């Protein structure tokens, strides 16, 4: 897929890039914290949008 919205694409079979981000309460959460579990990443556009 190549659309104007994409800077690069991440596809099935690729290693998921690790990240460390803050959540509510400013606690930090990293993707690698969940190694050994499956992880569902739900990217949503902005708070207050549907869903």
């Amino acid at each position, binding site marked *: 897929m190549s659309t104007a919205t994409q800077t690069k694409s*991440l596809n099935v079979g690729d290693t998921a890039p690790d990240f460390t981000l803050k959540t509510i309460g400013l606690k930090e959460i990293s993707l690698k914290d969940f190694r050994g579990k499956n992880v569902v990443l739900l990217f949503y556009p902005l708070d207050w949008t549907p869903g």
Partner: protein
Amino acid sequence: MPAFDKRVGDFEAANTQVLGISTDSPFSHENWAKAVGISRYPLLSDVQRSVVKDYGVYWPDWNANVRATFIVDKQGKVRFTERYGKGELPQPDKILVEVKKLG
């Protein structure tokens, strides 16, 4: 995504963590989560837009990200991706089926 919040127990039973990500601040997340009833999974803040760019979901028009779901397996590999158009939302039932395929 309140629809996923209600189903967190089903995902946990399938050894799966649910994470929400947008470019909003943790303070915005806190207000939104309280307003719509999200309390069972974390909402993460990519205020630098670095993660949304790494995952190829950055949306320059809004300096935000498009709606998309990725499933990452126990070894850290991407096993499923789905992008959504206007008015489309991820369906917990469908995502749960995909997760269960991974065991």
